[in-house]
């Protein structure tokens, strides 16, 4: 039987039945293999991001809103995961919790093994600067600074010397293919150029967790594809990338897509599986 390379996809990995780890992991080996995105082959590698049974509730009583409920998500080095779901499903809440911009009502968020909730405000801010990069839909570049200055700014905030920070910034700009823009101001850049500078800023230094919230939302299709190429390359080079998007075509650049609805992770496309690809159907005769 002849099979298509894009055979029929297998059954979905319904995350509504995923096991929920009631307590935070004590070591890298305790990561629950049923949580979204964990596989046995990578169980010994420390995840860059580990979210365990994370919930975020706003308000009380009749005003209670379950923004996120019992979310489990693990990203290892080199993993690129897309988050999709309708408006209000909890995508941005999940991203904000993953990046320490918000704190969970219950559950634990670990970035490179450190529980963000256990840190005080100053420590968490420092952790964000050192480990986590953000990319936003509207770029958020500082208007009075050149591309290089924008990229080196967070490093200087973290105590780097201006000279060392500038060298790293130039290197980061080169990595995303916009080194020629180093001395250009944001207002003189196209949307696609500005977003690539924003990615350089997000990943400069030793930061290995990249959180991107609709980074292609303000871009045309070609510029959007260029941004996904950059994100994909960064993941292939060892970063963990979490992308929130409503564009299926861009989500498909990730290794897998996690679906949220009403604050819950309800599905996951699962890892790529060669057998799945080969499980195709024969096309009709002449």
């Amino acid at each position: 039987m002849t099979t298509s390379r894009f055979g029929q996809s297998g059954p979905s990995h319904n995350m509504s039945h995923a096991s929920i780890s009631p307590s935070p992991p004590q070591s890298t080996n305790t990561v629950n293999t049923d949580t979204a995105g964990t596989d046995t082959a990578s169980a010994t590698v420390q995840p860059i991001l580990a979210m365990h049974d994370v919930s975020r509730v706003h308000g009380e009583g009749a005003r209670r809103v379950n923004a996120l409920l019992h979310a489990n998500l693990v990203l290892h080095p080199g993993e690129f995961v897309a988050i999709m779901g309708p408006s209000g499903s909890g995508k941005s809440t999940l991203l904000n919790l993953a990046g320490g911009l918000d704190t969970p009502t219950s559950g634990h968020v670990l970035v490179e093994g450190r529980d963000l909730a256990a840190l005080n405000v100053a420590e968490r801010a420092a952790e964000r600067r050192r480990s986590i990069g953000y990319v936003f839909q509207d770029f958020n570049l500082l208007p009075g600074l050149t591309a290089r200055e924008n990229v080196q700014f967070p490093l200087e905030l973290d105590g780097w010397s201006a000279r060392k920070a500038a060298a790293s910034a130039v290197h980061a700009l080169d990595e995303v293919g916009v080194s020629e823009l180093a001395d250009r101001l944001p207002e003189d850049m196209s949307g696609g150029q500005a977003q690539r500078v924003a990615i350089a800023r997000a990943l400069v230094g030793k930061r290995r967790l990249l959180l991107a919230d609709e980074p292609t939302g303000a871009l045309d299709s070609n510029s959007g594809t260029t941004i996904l190429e950059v994100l994909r390359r960064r993941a292939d080079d060892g970063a963990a990338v979490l992308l929130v998007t409503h564009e299926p075509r861009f989500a498909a650049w990730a290794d897998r897509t996690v679906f949220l609805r009403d604050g819950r992770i309800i599905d996951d496309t699962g890892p790529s599986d060669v057998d799945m690809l080969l499980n195709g159907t024969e096309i009709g005769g002449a």
Partner: protein
Amino acid sequence: MAIKEALLALLQRSPASAYQLKKEFDATTSETWPLNIGQVSTTLQRLQRDGLIEQCPDSETVAAETTVMTATADSQGTGHATSPNHSATVTRTKSQTTAVWQLTDIGRDAVSQWWSTPVTLEQRGRDELVMKLAFAVTTPGVDVTALIQRQRVALQRLLHDVTRARRALPPSDIAGLLVLDHHIFATEAELRWLDTIDDRRLRARI
């Protein structure tokens, strides 16, 4: 699936054997709808029957030479290949694997007709997903939300696979890129269509 027309189009490029046609078809479509050699042979027989293709004179010569060699061995009484049944088997196998096909004038006209005629909706056939959803939303007891979500996950998974395959293609593979781009756009369109159905059902409930 227009396998017949696709094979005629390949033969318009140059004469080819069944195996070469299979390989070229798979390569051109980036192995999206791989053919098996049996399908190709059956289709070629039908095309020959309808006068659209013919064997090249060269391939006929190869078959004839094989027959002569077998007959010579028999007449010299050399032993091993003297069985008539054995000789016949060898001849048949050789002639099948070496047959090279080319278009007739009728075949050339058929390909020209294919190029100049748009593909209609009827030719594309029924879409099972559309039918399934139409029946699902009008049949009591069907969990349409779950059905849509399962389909969404399957399509998104397919989109991951196709996108990964497209990234691996060299820019020079124009036909392969074209085919995979079609899959990407078509899959994305189906996902958006599912979202639209979901939104409409949600609003109706509110």
